[in-house]
């Protein structure tokens, strides 16, 4: 898989009153192959729209999106687990078999690795929020994606569960070669997880910050300099007239 390139990408939505608003407006950026890219920005800046375009869930109205060939095998993790309540954890985790094909054994290995082995036969309503999101993470990883898209996957979790899942994600990223695009509005999460941190503002990519620190990264280390850089970009963008 080569780098993902976006050129002048725009996406508009029509509001019920007929007004047309731009979620993305001439957005150009590239995502390095094999990188852990975090997209950070305020609510409504176009992060989720960008991820939905990357996932193929929506089409751009203008501009080009180039994967350097065919779309890679893609896994998407949403803010909510989106587990099927009528299936057991095991069957939920393997759901991709009905579309992408592949072995259920692999899902079993991931369930074990992520501490969900004893919950194989449980139903989603019998899991805590953290465990349900972990099952969603296992579902996404076990389909062995080359491109992993994550839309604020840990935003609804408590601090401790979020930290644990961040650790597990970093460990998995080190083990399994893939490109990760992770969306968050949490600067701490962005600087902890991201190698490339793209700052979005009003539908455009406002700047890029790089974090070379090797994985796994401890959570308590203050990455104030990086956070200051990101805030600086956001401040500059605020002052730039559209």
């Amino acid at each position, binding site marked *: 898989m080569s780098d993902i390139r976006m050129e002048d990408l725009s996406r508009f939505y029509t509001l019920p009153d007929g007004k047309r608003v731009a979620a993305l407006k001439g957005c150009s950026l590239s995502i390095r192959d094999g990188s852990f890219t975090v997209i950070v920005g305020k609510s409504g800046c176009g992060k989720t729209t960008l991820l939905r375009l990357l996932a193929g869930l929506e089409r751009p109205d203008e501009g080009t999106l180039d994967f350097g060939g065919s779309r890679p095998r893609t896994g998407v993790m949403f803010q909510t687990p989106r587990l099927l309540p*009528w299936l057991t954890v095991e069957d939920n985790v393997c759901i991709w078999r009905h579309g992408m094909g592949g072995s259920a054994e692999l899902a079993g290995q991931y369930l074990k690795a992520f501490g969900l082995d004893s919950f194989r036969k449980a*139903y989603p309503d019998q899991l805590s929020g953290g465990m349900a999101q972990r099952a969603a993470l296992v579902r996404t990883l076990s389909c062995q994606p080359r491109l992993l898209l994550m839309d604020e996957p840990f935003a609804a979790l408590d601090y401790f569960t979020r930290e644990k899942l961040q650790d597990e994600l970093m460990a998995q990223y080190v083990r399994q070669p893939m490109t990760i695009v992770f969306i968050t509005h949490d600067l701490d999460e962005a600087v902890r997880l991201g190698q490339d941190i793209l700052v979005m503002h009003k539908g455009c990519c406002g700047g890029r910050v790089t974090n070379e620190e090797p994985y796994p990264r401890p959570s308590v280390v203050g990455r104030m300099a990086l956070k200051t850089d990101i805030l600086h970009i956001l401040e500059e963008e605020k002052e730039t007239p559209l």
Partner: protein
Amino acid sequence: MKRILTKILTICALPLLLIACWQLGSMGHWWGSYIVPPPERVWSSWLQLAASGQLARHIGASLMRVMTGFAIAAALALPGGIWLGLHPAARRVCHSLLEFLRNVPPLALLPMLILWFGIGEASKIIIVVLATVFPIFLNTLDGMSHPDEQLLEMGRVYGLSSRAVFWHIRLPQALPAMYTGLRIGLGYSWRSLIGAEMIAATAGLGYLILDGEEMARPDIVVAGILTLGVLGIAADALMRAIGQRYLWTERKEHHE
């Protein structure tokens, strides 16, 4: 043990209270015994009917009509509701016709049904089918027409085919609505019996009630009504047991 007793008491408390009020009213002559026959007379008539084998014959005839009508209605309504639920354009085309049919009471069709199908079993079963088909159909349609967009999106992300989306997402999600439709439909089939058995019947609980009315035997009428109600409860209990065994929403309630 205590839990079971509490459960039985919760279920039986209100019916027992009503029977006590009924008994009290009859003993105090608050109403004439012709208007509301006393419970002991109803009970004795019921025992006589049961001992003579008449009750079993009536129940058998009604049960056959209800089950046949219900099965035919389900066989029509479930696939019909699923298909229209999956095809919004067809749904729009059929909307006015369905609304028209839904609002016509089955009994209004009685003269035409007798004309078309005679006074045999067919007309009786068709009345049950007409009363039963719409609750099942409309609930199925509703369940299929409102899929969870987030789950469909998840299916798209993992490349699920339309067939896989149907079997793994849309159908399981619609099952609770279909099940509700079946339960309501089953109740409606019992309710439609009186109408169905108005057509030259010689057996059936509806016939028993109508015969009791003609013979000026309100005790038989009430005995028939109570039997009908109890059978309806039993049929619903069976449906609930099936739901608790196989349906994901009922399973959840069961666990709680």
